[in-house]
């Protein structure tokens, strides 16, 4: 009995042992099934849910001016995320975040709620927040608020060089200017990393696969100091004469390096364009908006004449009436008689220039216009450069050579004019303007951007003759306002009537322009000023801008003076008197201002003018020597005390 029971027990134990063994075998089989046979499949599933590929932003390269001043830099800022899965309550979160980040509370609440319902791992609340916002949020120490570093473009000088630099879009990609044209170099290459995340998509550990490569730093030819002065003067001139747009280019004629390039109106590249905003402010007028160069072009016509029809500065041209292509060619102011080539430039005679153009002939005229670089892009490596407008010679009308001679039937950008003017300044070589001087990869060596070899456009003697004639323009002709103290100057004014394409006629608004160079013996700079929509001539609107810009640029570049400060000596008396008057003026200005009548200064000497004016409580701006020939405003006009009266004296 005992043994029988024992035997049964042992049999039953064996049954249990076998059951357990079977169970263990099943476990073993399942282990092999999962860990060996289907390992790869599960490894893929694990990777898919655990690993998030992340991009490591590469810092964008800096843009520097020629002296290493930073014009565009990238700074690290925070972007705020929340983890909706860990959000205690969407409404409370919206209440907390909205006021700090200046967001709409209801809208944010909706976004948070939607993300939470969809079980999203993260939701970007606001990109690139300010430092103050970031600090305020961090001080809350809420675990569901997360931050990520992003780089943001910053232009420390606000508008200075804005058109050249351009700007970046929300993805930090260039959308204008150097930023766009050189985007690939500047951008660098983002790195990649594998982020191990937990089940709520929270990053635990990051494994870098490829390091980010920072963008290349670019050094521009611009000089920030000159650029700043240029923009200031351009703005004052355009706003002061109620014009619409304007542009200035300052260039080294020997190397083609563009030292300053300004356009008006301007914009702040730090601000993102808003919808409905006037995009015109972002237009780089200097390279993108060609206009008829007008009288400026006479310089190039005369240069072509010297080389092709043996014109000399003293050659006399008949400058009577001229009918060209069925229209009468008008002079800008008065009718001239026969005059020398030098005078044609100095007084800016349309008829004279047209006759030179006709004599040169259309074939050679076209060739020289091309030699000066018109009708094709300068290749400045900026986006949206216009080639200007120049018809091929086959399409010229019989009168075209005459009209082009004084800058009609052709359109050029300010930078094209600067390029052409440089030909004369540097002794006859067409040097392409350049904007980017060198580039430097982070940790790498500086790499100069190669300049195109210059092409000869004029004989050196021609260039010298032209410079002499251009000096006369400033000394005796239309460009007197461009005279510099201490430097010889050559230049040319231009006042192209603006053609109204709708009305098909020329309007009474002008593209007032001035191109010039200094010092004349070996010009360091070429400056071209174009002001569009002016109601005065180039000599009055654009030449003073040249004067101020050139003075500042020569000072900044430390160019040695080539003249004693003769101009000041000449006007010592005048200036002393004016200064005295000014001082008295100040005293007067403190007494209550009463409108007075402007006396008639005509025929008075300088001393008399100043005395009379100060008695009336007026300031005078005196120009010239001798007796008063003209005054502005006219006699009898009502002016408040302390106002200025301009008088022109002549012998």
């Amino acid at each position, binding site marked *: 009995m005992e043994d029988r*029971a024992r035997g049964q027990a042992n049999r039953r134990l064996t049954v249990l042992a076998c059951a357990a063994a079977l169970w263990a075998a*099943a476990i073993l089989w*399942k282990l092999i099934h999962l860990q060996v046979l289907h390992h790869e499949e*599960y*490894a893929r599933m694990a990777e898919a849910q655990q690993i998030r590929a992340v991009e490591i932003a590469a810092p964008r390269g800096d843009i520097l001016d020629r002296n290493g001043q930073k014009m565009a830099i990238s700074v690290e800022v925070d972007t705020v995320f929340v983890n909706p899965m860990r959000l205690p309550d969407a409404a409370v979160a919206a209440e907390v975040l909205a006021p700090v980040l200046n967001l709409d509370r209801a809208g944010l609440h909706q976004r948070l709620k939607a993300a939470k319902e969809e079980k999203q791992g993260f939701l970007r609340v606001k990109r690139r927040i300010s430092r103050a916002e970031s600090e305020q949020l961090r001080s809350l120490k809420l675990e569901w608020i997360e931050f990520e570093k992003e780089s943001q473009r910053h232009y420390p000088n606000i508008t200075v060089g804005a058109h050249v630099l351009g700007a970046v879009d929300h993805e930090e990609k260039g959308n204008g200017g150097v930023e766009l044209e050189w985007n690939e170099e500047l951008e660098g290459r983002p790195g990649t990393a594998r982020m191990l995340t937990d089940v709520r998509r929270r990053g635990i550990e990051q494994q870098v696969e490829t390091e980010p490569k920072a963008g290349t730093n670019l050094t521009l030819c611009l000089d920030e100091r000159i650029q700043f002065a240029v923009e200031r003067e351009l703005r004052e001139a355009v706003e002061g004469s109620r014009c619409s747009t304007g542009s200035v280019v300052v260039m080294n004629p020997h190397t083609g390096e563009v030292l300053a390039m300004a356009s008006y109106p301007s914009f702040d590249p730090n601000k993102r364009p808003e919808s409905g905003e006037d995009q015109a402010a972002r237009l780089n007028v200097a390279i993108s908006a060609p206009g008829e160069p007008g009288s400026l072009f006479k310089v190039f016509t005369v240069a072509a004449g010297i080389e092709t029809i043996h014109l000399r500065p003293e050659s006399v041209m008949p400058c009577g009436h001229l009918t060209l292509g069925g229209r009468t060619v008008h002079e800008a102011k008065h009718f001239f008689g026969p005059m020398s080539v030098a005078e044609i430039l100095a007084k800016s005679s349309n008829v004279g220039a047209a006759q030179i153009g006709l004599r040169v002939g259309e074939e050679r005229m076209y060739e020289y216009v091309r030699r000066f670089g018109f009708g094709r892009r300068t290749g400045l490596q900026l986006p949206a450069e216009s080639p200007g407008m120049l018809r091929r010679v086959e399409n010229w009308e019989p009168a075209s050579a005459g009209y082009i001679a004084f800058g009609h039937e052709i359109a050029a950008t300010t930078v094209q004019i600067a390029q052409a003017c440089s030909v004369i300044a540097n002794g006859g070589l067409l040097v392409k303007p350049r904007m980017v001087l060198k580039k430097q990869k982070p940790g790498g060596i500086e790499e100069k951007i190669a300049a195109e070899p210059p092409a000869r456009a004029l004989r050196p003697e021609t260039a010298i003759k032209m410079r002499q004639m251009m000096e006369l323009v400033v000394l005796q002709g239309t460009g007197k306002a461009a005279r510099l103290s201490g430097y010889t100057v050559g230049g040319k004014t231009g006042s192209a009537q603006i053609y109204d394409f709708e009305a098909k006629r020329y309007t009474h608004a002008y593209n007032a322009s001035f191109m010039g160079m200094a010092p004349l013996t070996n010009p360091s700079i070429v400056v071209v000023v174009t002001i569009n929509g002016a109601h005065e001539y180039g000599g009055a609107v654009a030449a003073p801008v040249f004067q101020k810009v050139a003075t500042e640029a020569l000072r900044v570049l430390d160019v040695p003076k080539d003249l004693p400060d003769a101009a000041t000596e000449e006007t010592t008396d005048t200036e002393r008197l004016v200064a005295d008057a000014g001082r008295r003026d100040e005293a007067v200005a403190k007494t209550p201002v009463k409108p007075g009548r402007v006396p008639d200064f005509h025929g008075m000497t300088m001393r008399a003018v100043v005395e009379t004016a100060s008695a009336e409580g007026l300031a005078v701006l005196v120009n010239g020597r001798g007796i008063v020939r003209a005054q502005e405003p006219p006699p009898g006009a009502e002016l408040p005390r302390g106002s200025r009266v301009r008088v022109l004296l002549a012998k």
Partner: protein
Amino acid sequence: MPQLQKTDKKLFYATVGTAFFGLVMVYSATSIMAKLRYQSTTHFVVQQGIALGISLVVMLLLKRTHYRNLRSPAVAFATVGVVVVMLLAVYVMDSRQHRWLRLGGLNLQPAELAKPAIVLFLAYFVAQRARAINDKHTIMPALMAVGVVTLGIGMADLGTAVVVGITAAAVFFVAGLEKKYFGVLALIALAVGTYFVVSKPYRLARIVQFFDREYKLVDRIDPKGTIKNYLRRSSASRDTNYQMEQSKIAVGAGGPAGLGLTHGKQKLFYLPEAHTDFIYAVICEELGLLGSLSVLAVFLLILYRGLRTTLQSGDDFARYLALGITTIIVVQAFMNMSVVLAMGPTKGIPLPMISSGGNSLLATLAMMGMLMNVSENGAQ
């Protein structure tokens, strides 16, 4: 008698080694979670270490206590009595889960602590009535006692109740209970089990989802969707599938070689309860086949040594004690591993000696201490 000479070295070293291995795995599974929740990577492992220290002392004490001293009505009824009191207390005090009994700084889990008591009681009772095992005066009281305790455990922890039930059945089976009673017992177990399953939506959802993932069959049987709505009431209705899927990913991604100790990734909250019910998944993921098969081998060794002890023991109490302990530990281990490998519905039982949790560790090592003693002293 020099104690050392008689030690069942295989069992002893396997147990102690596995317990320390468990400590390492608890650290690996919890360090990140502990860092995030308690700002200390060692939060859990320190607690587990203290529990391990206490449990080893208890194990060594019981190992040195001759099993004859446990073979008394006092021990059997006192332990069961204490367990019943604790189960009643936990039912009242933890009114939601009926699982945790908080006494001072101690968190007691009566369902775990009931296990040594129940194997002691079974061994004592069956040994006493070995000659009349099929007598109704044996069966009825046994059924009452075991049934009450199992029901009490089942209130909180169905998985452990199933383990206890299987252990009791195994002991009675070997003791010679006639087969017809097993039919009756099976019917009772089925009825009670069904009640327990259906009474909690999450339990039903786990079972149904195991057999019918997408509720296709449920939709066909019940087009109105009443059952589905009932299942949806379980807060974690997607959990079963999700948990099993994540567990399989952990085991599968580990592959033959494993990702390396502490390099597992599924413990980043993809695995639910990575340090308790699913620690075997972490072992498989980090240590590959070497880890998974070693753990299986340890429990097979315990099974082998336990059955060997059962066969060799001269007296009935020793036999049934060894059998009960072996069954309860091995069944629990196999069940846990089956859940991890998605071979059975999720039950929520820890892996003996390895999972984090002091109560389970204490109960398991106490039983291992007794088993070692029987192994050392029980041979004829």
